[in-house]
C-alpha cells in the first residue's frame, strides 16, 4: 500500500529534519510514502483567519490532487497541515453549501473520499504496535521523554479523532515501545504560544518556559514533539528564555520520528539531530544511546 505524502511547507524549510526522519523511518518500516505531485500550501493559520472559504479550499485542493493521483490515504507529519486537511474534509462533508462553494473555487469535484492520517497515526493504526515493537533494534533504555502534543494535533477532538484531547497517550505509547520511558506530566497539551512567536514573542517565552519547566520537573531528559511550530518555539527560544528568566535552559527537543529513527538504528546525523539549536548529543551520549 502506498500513501500520499503531504509534507507541507515547514517540512521543506525549517523542519527539514522532521521530513528527513519521517522518510527514513517509513523507509525502514517499508511504508511507502509518495509525495503528492504539485501539492500546495494548506493555508495554515493565516488562510482561515482571513477568509474562511480560502481556509477550506486550499487544503481541500490538496485532497483533490491526492484523489486525482489515485491515493486513498494522505499522510501529513505537520500537526497544522493535518489539522487543516482534516478540518477542510470535515467542513465539506458536513455542509452541502460549503461543498458547493469549495467545488466552485477549486473547479474540481468535492465528492471525494480520502483518509487523512497523521504520521504517528500511521504507526499506530496502519503499522501496528505489535510489529513496531519487533523492529526496534536499538532500544533507547534509560531515556526519559516528555511527550508534548500541543493543540493542533488533538483539537477540535471531534474532527481530529486522534486521541483524548485532555489526556492523550499515543506519543507516550510510541516512546515506550522504543524502550525509552515516557514521563507523566501536566503540560502535555498546553499551548506553546504558536505563531505569536512573531508578533508577541514575550508570550511565547512565558508559555514555552512553563512547558519546559514542567517537563524538567517531571524528570524528562528530552521533549518529544510532532509539530514543527511547537518544535520551533520550544527549541529555538530556549536561549531567550534563559536570558529572560536568568537560568540555564538546555532541554533537547526532538521530533517523535527522530526518536523512532534512533531506536531503529538510523544514523543520527541523517535524522537531522545536528540541526537543533539545543544540542541533543550530550544527553543522548550520557544515556549511552549514541
Amino acid at each position: 500500500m502506498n500513501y500520499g505524502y503531504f509534507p507541507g511547507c515547514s517540512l521543506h524549510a525549517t523542519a527539514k529534519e522532521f521530513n528527513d526522519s519521517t522518510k527514513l523511518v517509513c523507509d525502514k518500516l517499508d511504508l511507502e510514502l509518495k509525495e503528492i505531485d504539485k501539492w500546495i500550501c494548506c493555508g495554515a493559520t493565516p488562510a482561515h483567519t482571513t477568509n474562511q472559504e480560502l481556509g477550506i479550499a486550499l487544503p481541500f485542493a490538496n485532497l483533490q490532487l491526492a484523489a486525482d493521483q489515485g491515493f486513498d490515504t494522505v499522510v501529513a507529519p505537520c500537526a497544522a497541515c493535518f489539522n487543516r486537511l482534516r478540518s477542510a474534509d470535515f467542513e465539506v462533508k458536513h455542509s452541502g453549501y460549503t461543498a458547493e462553494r469549495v467545488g466552485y473555487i477549486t473547479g474540481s469535484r468535492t465528492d471525494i473520499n480520502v483518509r487523512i492520517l497523521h504520521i504517528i497515526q500511521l504507526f499506530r493504526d496502519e503499522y501496528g504496535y505489535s510489529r513496531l515493537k519487533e523492529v526496534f533494534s536499538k532500544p533507547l533504555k534509560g531515556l526519559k521523554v516528555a511527550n508534548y502534543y500541543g493543540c493542533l494535533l488533538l483539537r477540535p477532538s471531534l474532527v481530529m479523532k486522534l486521541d483524548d484531547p485532555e489526556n492523550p497517550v499515543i506519543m507516550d505509547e510510541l516512546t515506550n515501545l522504543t524502550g525509552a520511558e515516557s514521563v507523566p506530566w501536566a503540560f502535555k497539551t498546553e499551548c506553546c504560544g504558536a505563531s505569536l512567536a512573531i508578533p508577541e514573542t514575550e508570550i511565547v517565552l512565558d508559555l514555552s518556559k512553563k512547558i519546559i519547566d514542567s517537563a524538567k520537573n517531571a524528570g524528562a531528559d528530552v521533549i518529544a514533539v510532532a509539530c514543527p511550530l511547537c518544535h520551533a518555539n520550544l527549541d529555538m527560544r530556549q536561549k531567550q528564555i534563559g536570558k529572560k528568566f536568568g537560568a540555564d535552559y538546555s532541554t533537547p527537543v526532538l521530533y517523535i520520528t527522530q526518536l523512532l529513527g534512533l531506536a531503529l538504528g538510523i544514523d543520527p546525523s541523517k535524522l537531522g539531530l545536528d540541526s537543533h539549536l539545543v544540542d541533543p548529543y550530550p544527553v543522548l551520549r550520557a544515556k549511552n544511546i549514541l
Partner: protein
Amino acid sequence: MARIGVFVCHCGENIGRTVDCSVVAKESAKLRDVVYSVDYKYMCSDPGQIMVKDAIKKHNLTGVVIASCSPLMHEKTFRRAVQETELSPFLCEMANIREQCSWVHEDKVLATKKAVDLVRLMVEKVKRNTPLEPIRIPVTKRALVIGGGIAGIQAALDIADGNQEVVMVEKSPSIGGHMAQLSETFPTLDCSQCILTPKMVSANSHKNIKLYTYTEVESVTGYIGNFDVTLRKKARYVDDSICSGCGICQEKCPQKKISSEFNTGLGKRPAIYIPFPQAVPNIPVIDKERCTYFKNGKCKACEKFCDRNAIKFDQTDEFINIKVGAIVVATGYEMYNIGKNNKNGIKGYGEYGCGEDPDIIDSLQFERLLSASGPTFGEVKRPSDGKVPETVVFLQCVGSRDKAKGMEYCSKICCMYTAKHTMLYKHKVHHGQAFVFYLDIRAGGKNYDEFVRRAIEEDGAIYLRGRVSKIYREGDKLIVKGADTLSGSQVEIAADLVVLATAITAQPDIVPLAQKLGVGYDKYHFLSEAHPKLKPVETNSAGIFLAGACQAPKDIPESVAQASAAAAKVLGLCSATELEREPYVAKVYESTCAGCGFCIEACPYKAIDNKAIVNRQGKLIKNVAYINQGLCQGCGTCLSVCRSKSIDLAGFTDEQIFSEINSLFV
C-alpha cells in the same frame, strides 16, 4: 336494529357562535338509525343530563352521541349519566364539535358542515359499540420496596404504618444507602446518621416490614395488584438467625486491608465485615472474592472464634418467591467516577488526572472525611499524607451539564452540598480557605439560598464563576487552573486538596431491573415517570411507583416527599379489594390466529404469550396468541402487526374505525 340519539350542545355561545346547532340536530335526524336528535344550550348541566336520560328511556335508545366538547373534558360526565339509565356507559360517544370545530374555524357554513360530519362519524361508531364490562382485578395487599436508602425506608415505613405489609429489598449488606455516608445535612447542618438511624431501626423492627438485605430482585412477572416476584438472597456465609453481631469475626479476620465501600475507599475493612457500626441488620457478610478461606482453602479464623457457630461457609444463594400488589422502586444513584474505566461507560476526566491523584477526591469521599464516624474521625486530613489541607478547591458540575461527557443534566444537589462542605470545612479548619468554582448557583428551596449566602458571607468561601481547565501536581501542591468569568481573568490556585462535585448518575445496573419491571428510562438511565407534572410518582407500568434519585437527582427532602407520595399511592391501591380498569383491551380470534408470534414481539407490555390449543386427547392442535387482560393496556400495536387480522381492540375495533372512515365522504 340500532336506535341512536344525538344531543347537540351549544355550550352557551362557545359552539353556537360558529356552528348552527339546530342545523346539526336536524341533519343528524336524517342519518340512518338516528331516532332522536335535539340541541340544547348546556348539555352538561343538570337539565341537559336529565334530557339525555329521559330520551334514552322514552325512545328506547341503544346508543348516544353527545356533540359537544372534547371527550377528554366530559366523556366521564355523560357516561355516568348514561349508566344511571341502565344503558352501558360504553354506548355513549362524544363528537368533539367545540375544541376541534367551533373554536378553530370561522366560517359558519363550513364549521356546521364539519360538525355534521363529526356527528355522523360518531353515530357510525356508536352503532358498533358493545356494552363492555370494566375489567376487575383482585389486589394482593402487600408491597415490595426495592432499595433501602432513605427513599425506600420512608416509603416502607409509611406503607407499614398504613397497616399494609411491606417487603423491603436491599442489594448491599445494610440498609441506609448514601444518606448513611453523609456527615451533616443542608440547610440545617443536622447530623445525617442521627436522623437516619432511628428510621433504619424502625424499618427493621416494624411488624409489617419484612426486610431482606444482601438481596436482589431476580424476576418480576404479573401486573398491577398481582405481581409475582422472585428474590435472590445472596449467600452471606453468616446465618443471620444465629449471629448476634458481636463483631469478634471482624477482629480476628487476617484480611484487614480491603478498601471499604462505605468509606469510599478512604478506609479499610476486613474480609468478613459489617459495613458500618450502625448497620441494619447488624450482621456481617463475607466478601467471597477476598476471603482467605475462599481463595486458599485455609483460614476459617472467623469460624473458630464465633461462639454461636453462625459462620456457614457452605451457604448458597437462596431464592424467595413473594406475591405483591404494588412495587416502589427506590434504587437511588451512584456518583460519576472521573476515572478512565467508568462503570457508566462515560469518558473520564484526563484534565483532572483521571482519579489517579489521591488528593483529588469526590464529594462523597469528602463527606466521609467530615463524618465523625469516618476514617479520620471527622478531622479533615488529606488522603495522600494525612496533612490538614489549608487550601481546598471545590469544583462543581464535574460531569454534569457537560455535553462532552454525555451528561447534560444538572445534578441538582451539588450547589447545596458544596456550600455545606465549605462551611463544615471552615468550622473544622479555621485558618483554611475554601474556593468554589461554579457555573451557576442553583439554590432553589426553603432556606437554601440563605444557606449559600451564609457559606460565602459568614464562612468566607470564595466563589469563582467558571470552569477549571486543568489540575496538576507540583510537589506538595495541586495547581488548579481555571477561569473567573466574572472578572474575566485566569486563576491559578495552589491547593492541598481538590473536591469534585461529580455528577449524580443512575445506578450502573439499573437497566436490567428496569426491563424486568417494564419501567421506562431516559438516555441517562434514570427511570421515567408516567407524566412529568401530573404523575411524577407513577410509572407507565401500572402498580409500579418511583421514589428518590432513581428518577432524577434529588436531595433528601425531595426523596422523602416522593417516597411518602409513592406510599400514599400504594395505600390507595391496597385499600380496594378489586381494581377496575377501562376495558379497552385486545382480544385474539383463535380460529384464524396462525400463531406467528409477531404480536408477542410487538407488545410493549409483554402481555401476549403463546397458548397451546389441544384436543381431548391432549394432542397439540396449534399454538395461538393469548392476551393477558390484566397486562394489556390497549395500545393496539399487536393488531396492526397481525397478518391474519386475528386481533381486535375493544372500543377501537376494525369494524368501528372502518365505518367511521366510510361515513366521512358520503
